[in-house]
């Protein structure tokens, strides 16, 4: 088993019957040894996702460089799934995250800014300009960046607090931007990213579930139930090729229906660290 876990610091609080005002259990005494398996399983998951990120990005890059617009457009959404699933770890490398995933909004000059690169710069070319022209340098940079990301993750000692907190962070992303369709504004493939963020959060929850159930079974059950509600709505927009409909198809009713469980998930997942006694 790879020795990649750093020892978390614990409060040493005994499991208490007390509930906080919000109905959450006070920190349980989770032994460091209990976290070793989930954290190492999570790193294996992340590395697996990064490998697919690389191979799917390569398909996108190849199509762009071959000048095949249709193939490039078809290849755009899939690699992003594997980035958005592992965002809590990818974001630890903020320079790379910016190069790979930055959106035009973040710049005063918007799409014209020289620092607008990565997936969304390519998306802009493919779906707004409807051409592969001029995209080769961005494609080359992107495949180099995802390889660099893999090297950095391999070398990383994954901090347990980042893993446990990562589930909440992914859902915060959804609540803040994915739910409005701001992420993939040219291709409208936001539902792919939305679903990927949810996948990533769910994976973390699943890996920690034996511990969460032991510490606070009601919390765990609530999280399960809200994930199920979100997934059910997203699944109704799934397409045959394993993808999702255009964001435009998401009805106002469904967007509203998503907000409750998404916000509730954000609240519940934000209590995971405390519930598991992690500092």
């Amino acid at each position, binding site marked *: 088993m790879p020795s990649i876990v750093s020892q978390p610091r614990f409060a040493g609080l005994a499991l208490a019957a007390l509930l906080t005002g919000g109905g959450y259990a006070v920190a349980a005494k989770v032994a460091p040894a209990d976290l070793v398996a989930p954290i190492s399983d999570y790193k294996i998951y992340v590395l697996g996702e990064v490998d697919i990120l690389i191979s799917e990005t390569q398909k996108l890059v190849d199509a762009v460089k071959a000048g095949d617009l249709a193939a490039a457009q078809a290849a755009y959404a899939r690699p992003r799934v594997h980035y958005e699933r592992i965002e809590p770890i990818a974001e630890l490398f*903020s320079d790379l995250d910016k190069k790979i995933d930055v959106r035009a909004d973040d710049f*005063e000059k918007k799409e014209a800014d020289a620092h607008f690169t990565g997936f969304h710069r390519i998306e802009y070319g493919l779906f707004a300009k409807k051409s592969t022209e001029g995209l080769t340098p961005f494609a080359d940079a992107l495949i180099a960046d995802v390889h660099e990301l893999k090297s950095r993750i391999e070398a990383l000692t994954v901090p347990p607090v980042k893993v446990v907190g990562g589930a909440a962070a992914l859902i*915060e992303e959804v*609540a803040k931007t994915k739910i409005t369709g701001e992420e993939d504004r040219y291709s409208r493939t936001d539902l792919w990213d939305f679903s990927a963020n949810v996948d990533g959060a769910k994976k973390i929850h699943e890996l920690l579930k034996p511990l969460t159930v032991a510490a606070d079974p009601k919390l765990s059950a609530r999280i399960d139930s809200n994930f199920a509600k979100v997934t059910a709505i997203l699944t109704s927009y799934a397409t045959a090729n394993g993808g999702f409909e255009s964001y435009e198809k998401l009805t106002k009713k469904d967007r509203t229906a998503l907000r409750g469980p998404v916000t509730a998930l954000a609240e519940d997942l934000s209590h995971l*660290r405390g519930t598991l006694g992690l500092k």
Partner: protein
Amino acid sequence: MTTDDPRGSCPYKPLPTGDGQGLSRRNLLKGVGVTGLALGTAPSVEARIRDPHPHPNGHPPEADNAQPFWGRHQPGILTPPQSAAVLAAFDVLATSREDLDRLFRLLTQRVAFLMSGGTPPAAADTFPPADSGILGPRIHPFNLTVTLAVGASLFDDRFGLAAEKPRHLITMSDFPNDALDAERCHGDILVQICADRADAAIHALRDLVKHTPDLLALRWMQDGFLPPRPAASSGKRETPRNLLGFKDGTANLDASHAKVMDDLVWIRGQGGEPAWMAGGTYQVVRIIRQFVESWDRTPLQEQEEIIGRQKETGAPLGLRHETDIPNYASDPKGGKIALDAHIRLANPRTAETARSRIYRRPYNYMRGTTAAGQLDMGLLLVCFQSNLTEGFIAIQNRLNGEPLEEYIKPVGGGYFFALPGVQNAGDYYGRALLEAAGPVPSTRVSANPKA
């Protein structure tokens, strides 16, 4: 010439404006038939019984608290922050130096009046009123300050001022965590309006806008709020909290230390800066959205580690009192206060960073909701410094990458230079700048100002 009064000295009385009377016959006649609720009614028996402090407009005595307009330095910089603020940036529509001069004189006249109060001129009913009437027929100052600053763009080729541009004044450029919205950034002129009441601030803004239709175009605006200042007699002033729930301003420079202000805030006409700048200061505005829902879902301990202070007391982590000074030299690994804690990065308290400090005068703001249905609120940061590069820019460069960035997003604002104060009746905003620039080199009228 330095002054010990942080608000600026007041060697001359303000120009008298308006007729200074609230109880003209006209006002009394207008008062007849209006219900007792309306501001501006004549004092009545009912009003005296209801209000133990009868006052012509129904305003309390504090309405006439006023800040001095005249002085070496502008008001609203070291003035203790009033509870209501409006920051408004404008594009200058003037196309000639003459018109720019006219603009500055006009603004001087308006601000001098607004800050002292009085009665606006009456006109026939068939005309739009000269005044918005928000404060009633008589303007009470409510501690109003108006502070005028100029942006780098004013020194372009329109007015022949380029040679006099403050050396450090640039157009704000984005930092790594910024998501600057072009529609909420920059401007030829910035006006900072503060008062004890929001209606007094709004009244001043509308007055300036109404008087400058051909000279100024509003570019962006953000209002802000703070708790009301305690009455002078109540002594201890509690540090106000920002919308992250933390005390904001504990380690601010002390406005009552004149030497520190002269060194780190005011331009003294040396250091390679044009002489006309003496008495002014660089002003930075940053509109910083705070992701409050996400912050409110963050464990308290993490919040405190990110900031570097205890939330409840404001004490630096590991110390007991709000005003205790952290000893970073004895904490080189950041075991007590993390190396990337906000307060530690902002002010590392080393000899090298001693000059890299600013005078902060922030407000909280709230402006609705985002497309995602989250709350759009945050910090309207305003700060002053004698050297923009050593001050805000150096500090923000230290802060880049701080853990707090997960919860904040700067979206607007700009870099400006707050003009020297208006010293007497012969003086006006920008006079020294225009005189230093000399006559315009040619008679060309510049192209249309940028949108």
